[in-house]
């Protein structure tokens, strides 16, 4: 019972800490999906800084922003937007693509 009480207390502490502000305002960047293409398809972001990427899907169908290199995948419903937090990234290039239209929806993030 003591173990249970201890576990429960820790869980409550965890949940309360989730609400803490975890980072200062992050630099924001925007990408649009239009006709199954990313615009811009090349985005330069600061290295070693966490960024907030807002993806606007201007198409009527869903698309999935995906990148193994960035360790991110996020479905963006048609005519909606999605927020993706990325990084901090080491200097370099990080490709991404649209899972539902991989032949056309391709892009790259450059951290420098």
């Amino acid at each position, binding site marked *: *019972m003591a*173990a*249970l009480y*201890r*576990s*429960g207390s*820790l*869980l409550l*502490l*965890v949940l309360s*800490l*989730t609400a*803490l*502000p*975890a*980072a*200062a305002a992050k630099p924001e960047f925007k990408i649009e999906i239009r006709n199954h293409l990313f615009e811009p398809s090349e985005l330069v972001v600061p290295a070693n800084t*966490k960024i907030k990427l807002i993806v606007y899907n201007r198409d009527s169908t*869903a698309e*999935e922003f995906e990148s*193994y290199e960035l*360790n*991110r*995948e*996020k*479905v963006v*419903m048609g005519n909606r937007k*999605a*927020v*993706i*937090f*990325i*990084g901090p990234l080491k200097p370099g290039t990080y490709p991404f693509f649209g*899972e*539902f*239209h*991989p032949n056309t929806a391709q892009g790259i993030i450059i951290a420098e």
Partner: protein
Amino acid sequence: MVRRAAGLQSGLFCLLVMGIGSVARADGPVVDKVYDPYVQPLEREIELRGIVQNDSNATRDEIQLYQLGVGRSWSDKWWTEAYFIGKQVGDGGFALQAFELEAKWQMTEQGEYWADWGLLFELERERQVDIFELSTRLLVVKEWGRWVTTANVGVNYEWGDDIVKEWKTSLAVQGRYRLSRAIEPALELYVGQNHAGIGPVLTGEFRPGIGKKLNWEFGVIIGVDGNSPDQTWRGLIEYEF
């Protein structure tokens, strides 16, 4: 203030892994998959997972447990899955043992905070005896460059006419290296009553077509004390579409 908050969360993550791990003791099969907290809209899945337990103690030897699940997301926050659970002991026949319903809630956006958080709720009903089990697991993921640490901290309650009411706790931790999409090596730790084990696991993903994914996991968990099964082999295959 920001750094202090991040430090608090960092310390708490370590406390969860070390503190609860030292007290968690639950009965029943402990080795399972380690859940991440992420949910994608429009996702559907068929899943088969199983464990095969071997031990020098005959009462814990040659136990096989399989779960067939069908799941779908309802938004970018909620996921549900239903499972059929079957069991075979030794040369005895395979039998459908239980049903389970599962709901996952993604609480934070990936990468927004120091770690990513979610909750998993499970309700299991035994088929031939009057036993229910309700579980809640806290799901935590922290990225360390190409390393990803995932922790599941569970609190369970069992009740029914055929069981003594009981609270249980459990802990599962996975450290995974993101080597490539096709294959990622990992180390997993499980702690519960009558089971404390650690072992290597391989995971990976294939793309059979646009919008489709095949995820697999395979590994063996080695018991670290006399109360734990010598080996628990575990495997999983998920088809997302």
